[in-house]
């Protein structure tokens, strides 16, 4: 293969590599730059669980049962 052919092959290879790297960088950057809405919702729910213990009826019932258990462990085990 002459020098021009080698240069063309090398050029095509570099071009393909560049497009692949651009794609991957774009995918990576998008995850870094965009606000993680799902994680934020989970974080918000965790905080609400802590600051509004009685706001969630299911949690309120669980908290009541836990309190009863800690106040009277013998009854709780029966």
């Amino acid at each position: 293969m002459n020098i021009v052919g080698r240069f063309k092959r090398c050029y095509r290879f570099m071009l393909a590599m560049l497009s692949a790297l651009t794609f991957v960088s774009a995918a990576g950057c998008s995850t870094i730059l965009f606000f993680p809405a799902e994680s934020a919702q989970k974080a918000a729910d965790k905080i609400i669980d802590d600051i509004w213990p009685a706001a969630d009826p299911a949690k309120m019932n669980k908290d009541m049962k836990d309190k009863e258990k800690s106040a009277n462990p013998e009854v709780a085990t029966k």
Partner: protein
Amino acid sequence: MMQISWSKFASLQKNPILAAGVFAVFLIFSSAAFAQPPDIDINTPSILVIKKSLQQRFSALKPHLDSGAIGVSADGLIAVRDLNAVAVGARAGLEILVAEENQDRGSLYREIARANGRPDWESDLKLTFGERFISRAQSGWYYRDSANKWSRKP
């Protein structure tokens, strides 16, 4: 025993476009590992302090949330809805309570954004928390949507 087909490697060597394609697929799959959305850290000492303060104030706020004097807002804060639901002498106290709660909530969003190295997330966090506060509000509580319209949770 599995035989490695060296001819395939040779063809990759001969065809740079194919080689680049294979490399790109490898990169895409390997990048999937770090492409997972990061968990938001909410366990820094300053966040825990703010959370404790919010936790302690809730018992004072709850009767007013129940009566409809105040409600949760889509911007992640609480707001006075109907001062007539409160005795005249207690109105100033309620307004102070709401101001303190909102100050803590503002600090919470700012601190979460800062703790995660993204101060620009503060406004997104406010809206996300606002949406979750409304969604988790008790039946009968009032909430104010983004159009400033008050509604009662069914």
